[in-house]
Every structure is written in structure tokens, then in C-alpha cells.
């Protein structure tokens, strides 16, 4: 895996391109993964194994002394035989940039996920077609 991370700007523009290429080819996937970027300064947190109970800070990752960056990866889901032309890139979002990043990220997703069903307003007026329970429950909050 290439270790260089893109800047958030580059990442978002490449994500836009990735979504567009999905729309043009009319099939395919976009995978986006987000997780905390484990700092090497906090011991044993980079691994998935729990700290031993004898450790002075068994839950040190629950309350780190300072905010941690988020690692965001994106791929087109190609693996194995298609590995050559696989699209894969990642970025590190610093904690203070999170809000701005997700605001732009949400816009890109709204624009890029064009294959999803649009809200059907004509059906709503009639009030008959809303047989699905999902919408109603959400409105209740």
C-alpha cells in the first residue's frame, strides 16, 4: 500500500472523479473507510489487541490527551485480477479540519450518488403509497 496520503483537497477532488467514473460506467462501487489514525505515541494502540490489565492505562484510547486525526481511504472495490487498474487513495484529516471536510464530503456524496432513488413527491401528496415504515419512524426521531 502506498504510504503517501493525499491532502484533503486532493482527496475530495479525486473522490469526485471516482464517483463520476462510476456514473459513466453505470456499474461498480465506491468504498470509503474512515477510522482513527492511531498515534505511535500511545503504546499498543496501533494493534488490535487489548492492553494487558497490568497496564497503567488500560483504556488510554478512550480519553487521549489531545484530539487525533482521522484516516480516510477510498477505493473502487477492485481487487485480485483487476488490481492493476485499481483506484485507491487516502488522506489524513486533522481533528480541527473535520467539520469542513465532512461538509464538503457530504456535498460530494450527495452529488455523486446519483443512482439512488430520488424522493418521490408525487407519491407523498396522495398519501397512499407510503406503505414503508422506514420514513415514518425516522420523522418521529
Amino acid at each position, binding site marked *: 500500500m502506498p504510504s503517501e496520503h493525499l491532502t484533503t483537497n486532493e482527496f475530495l477532488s479525486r473522490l469526485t472523479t471516482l464517483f463520476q467514473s462510476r456514473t459513466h460506467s453505470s456499474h461498480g462501487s465506491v468504498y470509503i473507510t474512515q477510522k482513527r489514525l492511531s498515534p505511535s505515541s500511545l503504546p499498543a494502540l496501533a494493534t488490535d489487541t487489548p492492553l494487558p490489565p497490568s497496564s497503567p492505562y488500560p483504556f488510554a484510547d478512550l480519553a487521549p490527551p489531545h484530539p487525533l486525526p482521522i484516516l480516510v481511504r477510498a477505493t473502487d472495490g477492485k481487487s485480485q485480477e483487476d488490481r492493476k487498474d485499481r483506484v485507491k487513495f487516502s488522506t489524513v484529516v486533522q481533528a480541527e479540519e473535520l467539520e469542513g471536510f465532512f461538509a464538503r464530503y457530504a456535498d460530494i456524496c450527495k452529488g455523486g450518488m446519483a443512482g439512488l432513488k430520488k424522493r418521490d413527491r408525487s407519491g407523498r401528496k396522495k398519501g397512499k403509497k407510503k*406503505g414503508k415504515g422506514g420514513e415514518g419512524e425516522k420523522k418521529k426521531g
Partner: protein
Amino acid sequence: MPYLPTAQAYLEQSRLLISARPTTTKIITKYTLPKKGRKPKETSSSPPPTSETSHPQQQQSQPPKATLTLKTYDPASGVCLKYSTDKAAEVGRLIAALGTCGRIMAALPAKEERADEGAMVEGDAPVVKEEAKAVQKESGKEMKGGQGGHKGGDKGGVGGGGGGKKKKGKK
């Protein structure tokens, strides 16, 4: 782990999981456009009981039906929460929730995000805020609801999310 019935249930459980295991938990967002080969199955046979049936001439049958699947997975404990939707209207709210989850991952306080989130998501802001309050109040309770969901399958999950709240409120 099966798919959670509602976005709200998924988001609540995800927040709890990330709060408990902020280092190992990751969120995978998958947007899939199905291959063309699958499409005729839905259109040629009896029309599906969706809103499309009222307007078959609409261009909705033209683009393939994409799905958006969110998965919250913690490899350390093996917990996996999933939610899948095909509604474009939910995208904004779900991504905003991913931002909230990102704040928890980043170990930032969650509070100030709520106000900004309202501005970010146009129509769905009140829902998000209510949801946020609900999570704060019921974080302990939801764990019980979640366990009930495992036992009783889908039905139990719904009860833990929706019905459980009202009962507790009356007490």
C-alpha cells in the same frame, strides 16, 4: 450481524460502538451501482411495490438502482453494524452522522458539532438534533435494547429502538 432496520438504530448503535472502541472501529461506506445484467429482473417481472408503479413512464427506471451501505466494524470485538438504503434523501443525514462519528473517533467533544450539523443538513436538521439528545439520554438503555435485538431478531431490534423509549418515559 444482520442489517439494522432503521438509519436511526444504526447510527445510535454505531455511536455507542465507536465511543466504546474508538481506536479499532472503522466505518465503511459502500456505494454500489449494480451491473446491468441484474436490472431486467426487477423491471420485466411484476412491478415492485414501490412508488415507481404509479409513474412507470418516469425516467426512474432508466438509471440502475444503486445502494448505499454503511458498515461499522470493530475487528477487536467482532461487532459489525450494517445499514443499507437506496434513498437519495438519506445521504445527507447519513454523511452528517459519519461526521459526528468522526468527531468521536478524533476524541473531540461532540457538542458543538450538533449546532453546525443542523446548518449543514438542510431539511433533516431537527431529526438529527432530536436524535442526538435521545442518544445522550438513552445510552445506557440502548445497550439493553441491542441485546434484546440479538435474541429476538428484527422485531426485537425495532422494539428496542422505538417502542422502548416511550415506555421508559412514562415510568
